[in-house]
């Protein structure tokens, strides 16, 4: 198939960017979206032009490196699919495709489609863990965990930290990301000791980073490649309020 791409080009963080059009021909339906961009980039390099910068690594939908807005949707049109796992059979000959970086003031553009997501790491550093030193642990079976709790923890822990939730949200809120970590650890006995401080400290850091608030659009869940439920946001809000009341 032949496609016309409109790609956001921006040479650096402090330079203004714009959409630029490129034609890509003979695209196979078996290609992944990123392989299609690889082909474009090989072509651009050959012509002495600067290739499109984009983050990617595992190309298996698990590392969370890749992410771009494709035709207005974070990670593109297919549900529960990262853009590296999106395949060209979802498009048709003659399509025009608009490709942009995650847009959020807390995720400044570094170059083209690459954004700086260090804010996520700083939020985790405030409490997204269990404070257990290596060697502290007792036997793994010493504390039984109900299967339903373990499954729920896993549902939340599936987050890959890609940032699609922020990109999809009209308020650029990071609440689904933060709630996923809080929900993961709050579902397990191991996470109870620091449950209050975790909720409080992570939410405060999230606000400090300049992410917006949740106004219940649920775009985050729709865009999440792991399908993480907004129910975790409700839980996070409860935990945060409880923790705040306790002071």
């Amino acid at each position, binding site marked *: 198939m032949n496609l016309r791409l409109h790609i956001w080009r921006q*040479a*650096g963080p402090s330079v203004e960017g714009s959409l630029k059009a490129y034609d890509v021909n003979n695209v*196979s*339906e078996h*290609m*992944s979206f*990123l*392989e299609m961009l*690889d082909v474009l980039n090989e072509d651009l*390099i050959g012509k*002495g032009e*600067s290739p499109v*910068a984009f*983050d990617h*690594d*595992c*190309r*298996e*939908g*698990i*590392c*969370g*490196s890749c992410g771009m807005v494709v035709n207005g949707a974070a990670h593109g049109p297919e549900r*529960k699919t990262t853009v590296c*796992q999106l*395949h060209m059979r979802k498009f048709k000959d003659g399509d025009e495709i608009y490709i942009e970086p995650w847009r959020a003031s807390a995720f400044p553009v*570094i*170059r083209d489609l*690459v954004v*700086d*997501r*260090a804010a*996520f*790491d700083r939020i985790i*550093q405030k*409490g*997204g*863990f*269990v404070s*257990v*030193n*290596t*060697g*502290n*642990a*007792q036997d*793994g*079976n010493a504390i*039984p965990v*109900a*299967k339903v709790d*373990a*499954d729920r923890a*896993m549902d939340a*822990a*599936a987050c890959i930290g890609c940032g699609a939730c922020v990109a999809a949200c009209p308020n650029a809120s990071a609440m689904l990301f933060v709630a996923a970590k809080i929900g993961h*650890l709050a*579902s*397990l006995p*191991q996470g109870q000791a620091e449950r209050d401080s975790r909720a409080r400290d992570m939410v405060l850091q999230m606000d400090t980073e300049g992410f917006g608030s949740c106004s219940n659009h649920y775009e985050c869940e729709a865009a999440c490649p792991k399908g993480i439920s907004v129910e975790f946001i409700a839980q996070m809000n409860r935990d945060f309020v409880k923790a705040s009341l306790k002071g």
Partner: protein
Amino acid sequence: MKLNAHIPDGPIEQKWDKYIADSKLVNPANKRKFSVLVVGTGLAGASAAATLAELGYNVHAYTYHDSARRAHSIAAQGGINAAKNYQNDGDSVWRLFYDTVKGGDFRAREANVYRLAHVSTSIIDQCVAQGVPFAREYGGYLSNRSFGGAQVSRTFYARGQTGQQLLIGAYQALSRQVGLGTVTLHTKKEMMDLVVINGKARGIVTRDMKSGEIESHMADAVILATGGYGNVFYLSTNAKACNVTATYRAYKKGALFGNPCYTQIHPTCIPMSGDYQSKLTLMSESLRNDGRIWVPELKGDTRTPDQIPEGDRDYYLERKYPSYGNLSPRDIASRAAKQVCDEGRGVGPGGLGVYLDFADAIKRLGQPKIEERYGNLFEMYERITGENPYVVPMRIYPAVHYTMGGLWVDYNLMSNLPGLFVLGEANFSDHGANRLGASALMQGLGDGYFVIPYTIGGYFAQGGFEPVSSDSPEAKHAVAEAAERVEKLLGIKGKRTPASFHRELGKIMWELCGMARTEAGLKEALVKIPKLREEFWKDLLVPGSGEELNQTLEHANRVADFMEFAELMVTDALHRNESCGGHFREEYQTEDGEALRNDEDFAYVAAWEFNGVGVAPTLHKEELTFDNVHLATRSYK
């Protein structure tokens, strides 16, 4: 150079305990005076950095990713082994040790493997305490499954995302230390070189991938946890950025490279679909627990799988290896797939595929059960191929997955360069010539959480650390060399992209140094690789500058090292006149096509010393002794 593995004396069961009891300690108040650089934040690197910081050392961690949560450990699907014997099915530390030595085709160091099996149980405890959501039974206890090459159920898992969950656990432990200020985390910094002063590893050179700044960082010890080199084949299951640069640069600075030819080809990957292919995707081998592998009995059978009756199918693994069947070890399953495809019985485009069929399991257990076990893997398969594996059998083919070779290390996980420690896939130590399923995660975390914290302390306690700074001539020289190399890559201004060179190198390696190797083929590779390398340095095209985010430049820098490393790998494969594990030489096979080891002449670790680019490296041998697991022909029949 005489290689000394520094294996403690005494019976194998007591070596590690004795080592710990005998090791010198660093006073808690003095620990903060020792600084460590940890390169790589995968399972081994993140767990090491977090644990060393907990102990009080001054830790700096480096990753070329934008976050410490992205390393390719994250992609491991199946699980992690541990000798817990929770299933009461006869597992023990001894059995895990035995299976690993045997699975490694008797080319691993017994003492290291025993220690790995010994610490495996602590890894599970630690990860559970961190909140890793392992699969549980309804009673609330941990669930296990059996995994390729094992007859007990000792594999712990978190759906099909075990690597992810373990890495996130280690990342969280690391993040906690970053928050506490005990680890300084450097993201988007790629290691360019190792700094060696007075024979000791004392620092690294990095390039900032956003600004292009090249600088040195100095410390008392350097830990490389930089993963494997499978991407020398271009197409592999590795992430795109995985590379050999850190370990290869250390090799060029004097560290020995152990067994580079040992490459694991994973039997269950999605076959390639076109020449634009950028990587291959693994389907967890846990699928082999319920899937049955087959090809048509007849050559060139063009019928769709549902049209091929039972009698016209060859379930070749079940036929050839009745006791292990579809769960035969990876090297055996991979070669068997290649064999049937070479016979012209392969399926799918190009005949490079075999069926992995779940029809029987769905009939026996029902679709919901299969969905629960493998749902995400089935979804992934369908996303990539557009075929529904609940209805049509999956097509799979072997692909490069893991590299057992790596920098040579002793029992302390220290290379022959004092102060240079190497953990996880980056070292050579525990898997011999073939790694068993669910053992990579175990080794990465074992090294990082439970081995390095003890061994590095012993190194520091020896004392003798002169202060060093980035102003030292060695550091300045290494920085200047790295800068010069960047300029050189940018200055060629030829016609070919790094990707096109990488692809061509990968093709040479896959054809001549891949699943089956011959003397003639390897010699051919030794002619082709230097030629291609020459062309690379004449005709490379890298646009842009070195002072900005330049992904083409990053790639070129990595490919440049693969161009040299490939030759080392082939040299090793050519010298090893035997077949063992992930190294199969067609000249050395039994009448029925099984690998034929030569224990008399080759029961050693081949550790290579760098002598110059294009110059033959010097071979050093560490003889392996098998006092506990007696050398035997592996049989999975």
